[in-house]
């Protein structure tokens, strides 16, 4: 044995805690920075290098969280189980350089979706400080990179997967939705939000309907802008003349100029044909000017339009913070700034803002979300883990930008604007165990039960006693790291409640019924009555319990479900910090919710009682791509 071989063997024998040779924790992969129509300096496709958690992949690729299935349900052909290059260096050169041929390289497509989905998952896990599962029991999300011929891409919880369509473009070339960074991250975000807030796909408020779409857009766009390669490429071609390819003039970093040079410029370069799939959120975030009463306009009650307001508010805050950051970091009178640094600042701010919004999910009420709740959640989550906001002033910019769109935070706390109110005083912990509270749903429920008199005080009804059904959905301990190294330990739990109330009970709870709703219930009851009387003539004939108009308000077969729920944030000592919740017996919100559901046509009254129609993302995307308006009140 030569000396060299011996040394190599010795190195291999070096013992690591898990046994075996040390393995890298991360892995680098090339992805398309935005989509194939965004070009690099030499006319190729602009690429980016992303970091994903390392794992041993089997051909598919199949990993511990993701299974890529390259099956095309339109042609009914299975393309291949793709084996990805083992390392960054092992990738074909054209993958790194962005050769045009990538567009038809299915093996690269597989890497592109795999890397972007895993990157997004890793971002969520970092931001939330814990593992994040999918909304279904399986561990692996299925991904069809060429699932069907359709100008659509969507997440389908029932099928446990993401489907990316492909379609012929204007020039006859095939457009693959799986090659668009924003589309892949958008769909992955739908899957992750669905895992974290399973009730957000239910109809409940116009804002909630818009949120899934708007939030997915926000994460997708910030994900794109967190790539400094991409920002630099955009800034290298600003409108005004710059003396050099590496410097940018001061006037090109004013908020409006940045919007034009970075956001709008990307929107224009992005594959135009993809706009049918993704909508024009980026473009709109630049052009949608705030105006009084915007959110009340009928057009903005459409979920996809309303979501764009949310996106615009966040993206404007991004640009403001970025512009301000460059401005304050320069020397007085400085006229030229290095593009590389400006791009890096932009990417950092995009990353920070994205992290902030992902964290915000934990601080949002699990049912009936409205934009003000989302804003308060983002501000509070960020304050907890990043108390010092002086570097980017993200919270200030966010608050200001949302206010311009007339979205005020939900929390009325004065000294820290928008921050959720702290948990009420006087909570008892003596009958619960600290240790179990970090993981045990029953223990958390006991905490709720013991403190039911303190936790829900606003409306004088104890939610727990009156709710027909209460469930602690999850208890998750988290360790969150701020960008400055600050570590925050929290336990996050969420619970959910349902009460099914008769008309009489709804009235008693002070909940207003929408006009026409009662008539509809009455009709449903009549149908049920007819059916029953056919079976039991005697019972129907007796007419027991009927009011004068033949409508029984206390008919227990015809109840309307109302929902409540909350997020509980415990500190590292097991004390409750925040109780973010929507109470079951909160007449104003519940009345508003019923009115919306009724007007938007989400309530169906029928023989089976009152039902709600759940949203389907594939349908939502199609409505969006056609910019459709619906008129539910006009249908029969």
């Amino acid at each position, binding site marked *: 044995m030569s000396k060299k071989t011996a040394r190599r063997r010795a190195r291999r024998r070096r013992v690591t805690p898990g046994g075996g040779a040390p393995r890298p924790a991360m892995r680098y992969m090339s992805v398309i920075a935005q989509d194939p129509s965004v070009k690099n300096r030499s006319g190729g496709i602009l690429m980016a290098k992303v970091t994903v958690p390392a794992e041993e992949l089997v051909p598919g690729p199949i990993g511990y969280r993701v299974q890529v299935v390259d*099956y095309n*349900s*339109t042609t009914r052909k*299975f393309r291949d189980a793709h084996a990805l290059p083992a390392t960054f260096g092992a990738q074909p050169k054209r993958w790194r350089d962005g050769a045009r041929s990538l567009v038809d390289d299915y093996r690269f497509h597989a890497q592109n979706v795999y890397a972007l989905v895993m990157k997004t998952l890793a971002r969520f896990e970092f931001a939330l400080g814990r593992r994040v599962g999918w909304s279904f029991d399986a561990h692996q999300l299925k991904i069809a990179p060429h699932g069907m011929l359709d100008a659509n891409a969507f997440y389908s919880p029932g099928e446990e*997967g993401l489907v990316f369509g492909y379609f012929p473009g204007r020039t006859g070339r095939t457009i693959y939705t799986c090659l668009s960074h924003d589309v892949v991250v958008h769909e992955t975000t739908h899957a992750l939000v669905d895992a974290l807030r399973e009730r957000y796909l239910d109809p409940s408020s116009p804002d909630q309907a818009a949120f899934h779409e708007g939030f997915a857009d926000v994460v997708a766009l910030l994900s794109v802008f967190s790539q400094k390669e991409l920002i630099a490429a955009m800034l290298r071609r600003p409108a005004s003349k710059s003396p050099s390819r590496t410097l940018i003039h001061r006037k090109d970093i004013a908020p409006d100029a940045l919007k034009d040079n970075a956001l709008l410029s990307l929107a224009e370069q992005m594959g135009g044909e993809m706009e049918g799939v993704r909508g024009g959120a980026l473009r709109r975030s630049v052009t949608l000017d705030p105006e009084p009463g915007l959110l009340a306009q009928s057009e903005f009650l459409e979920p996809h339009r309303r979501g764009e307001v949310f996106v615009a508010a966040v993206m404007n805050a991004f640009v403001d913070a970025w512009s301000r950051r460059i401005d304050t970091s320069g020397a007085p009178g400085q006229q030229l700034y290095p593009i590389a640094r400006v791009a890096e600042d932009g990417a950092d701010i995009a990353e920070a803002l994205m992290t902030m919004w992902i964290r915000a999910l934990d601080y949002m009420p699990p049912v009936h979300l409205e934009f003000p709740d989302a804003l308060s959640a983002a501000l509070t989550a960020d304050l907890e883990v990043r108390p010092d906001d002086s570097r980017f002033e993200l919270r200030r910019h966010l608050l200001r930008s949302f206010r311009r769109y007339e979205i005020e935070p939900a929390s009325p706390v004065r000294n820290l604007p928008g921050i959720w109110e702290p948990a009420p005083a006087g909570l008892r912990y003596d009958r619960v165990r600290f240790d179990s509270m970090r993981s045990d749903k029953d223990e958390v429920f006991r905490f709720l039960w013991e403190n039911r008199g303190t936790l829900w005080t606003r409306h004088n009804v104890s939610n727990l006693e009156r709710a027909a059904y209460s469930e602690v959905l999850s208890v998750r301990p988290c360790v969150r790291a701020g960008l400055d190294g600050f570590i925050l330990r929290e336990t996050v739990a969420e619970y959910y409640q349902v009460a099914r109330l008769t008309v009489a009970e709804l009235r008693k709870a002070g909940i207003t019924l929408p006009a026409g709703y009662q008539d509809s219930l009455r009709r449903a009851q009549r149908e049920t009555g007819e059916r029953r009387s056919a079976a039991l003539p005697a019972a129907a004939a007796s007419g027991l319990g009927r009011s004068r108009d033949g409508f029984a308000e206390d008919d227990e077969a015809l109840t309307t479900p109302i929902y409540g729920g909350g997020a509980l944030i415990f500190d590292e000592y097991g004390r409750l910090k925040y109780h973010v919740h929507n109470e079951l017996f909160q007449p104003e919100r519940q009345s508003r919710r019923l009115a919306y559901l009724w007007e938007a046509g989400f309530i169906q009254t029928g023989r089976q009682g009152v039902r709600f129609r759940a949203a389907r993302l594939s349908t939502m995307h199609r409505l969006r791509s056609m910019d*459709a308006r619906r*008129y539910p009140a006009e249908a029969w």
Partner: protein
Amino acid sequence: MARAPRSVEIRSYQVGFGDCFLLSFVYGPTDKRHVLIDFGTTELPVRGQPRAPAKASQHMPEVAKDIARVSEGRLTAVVATHRHADHISGFATDARTGKSGEIIAKLKPKVVIQPWTEDPRAARDARKATRDSSASRRGFIAGLGAMHDIAAVVADLAQRRASWFGPALAKQLRFLGEDNIRNASAVKNLIAMGKARGAVAVWARHGSTSGLERHLPGVKVHVLGPPDLTQTETIKTMRSKDPSEFWHLLAGRSGLRDGVPLAQGLNGGRRTAGVPAEARWFRERLERMQREQLLEIVRTLDDQMNNTSLILLFEVFGRKLLFPGDAQLENWSYALVDAPTRDRTQRLLAAVDVYKVGHHGSLNATPKTLLWERFAHRKGNGRRKPARVLTTLLSTLPGKHGSTQRKTEVPRTPLLKALEAETELFNTDTLSFAAKNTELCHTVEVKP
């Protein structure tokens, strides 16, 4: 010559799932002027042994001959509200409808009215209803063309691969697909009739003239829909894209002659072997999703085409007759909500005396609060009895379209109940269709 009609006779012909209305304006004992609104079917009622839908090739010429008889060989106008088969198939001159279109063409209509989307000149650039644009951009009309291609593929697929879709889905796909297939013969005949000597072709849009003014003195015709894209764009200034783009994406390059990408793609045919075991579960799910997507696409497509429907309001001796074709809410919403003239339109519509029920009684073609609830001449509901009762004309065939379970059946039950309770309803479905005793139409006479 009489200055104004003394009465109007309206015949609603039995065409199964389809529309065919003949309006006869009676100016004097020997002066009647006839306007035919739509003439098409996608499926006829069942008759005979074994019980099977009647044949269009036999029935449609019968209807056409009756139209020729009633109109004494001369039509003032033909209106084709939109290009769905159930509204225009009877104008075809091929064998499928027994050359019924030839019979109609011989009646030499003086005016042929179609929505602007049918204007062959507009096909070059569909943004404006007239030909004053030279920029040859892919437009709305090309989008409609793309829809036909998709429909043809889907109908064919539903036929050939029925077992793969399952019977219920295949039936719906076939029905919707066939209704949306390009009916070249009918379209050609309509254009030819408009080009014939002494005839005028009118491509109408919201607010435009109908071309009937000269031929029907004393009758005012309001064109309420469809809006053209320049009209809808004024209210959509913030919108950055054209919804018709969607169809191009699906069908590929518009105007593509050599094959349609979706067609090629969908004809994939037999499932190939060689799917690894770990991918099979998802394969099943994916295929199911694809079938659902297909139905959703075809439904959307059907809606789009319905929304190119002409909406005509005839005003004669103070009476108002409304013929909205298959217009759905998106088409109606311009006239009722967004147009500058909406208040006047709403006032006019509140006084409607005869209403041709939109889209065979589907759930979203009779705007409930914007139109129906404003009709002043409805009876019942405890209100004071109106001086005259609203007459409604429904041409439909139940059990062909939509599903009761999903509350999308046509005609929609609650609407049908309301029509029965609150109006004088003439439903073609109640016409006898026995072999020996076929009633061809309902006739309603409207008098001052």
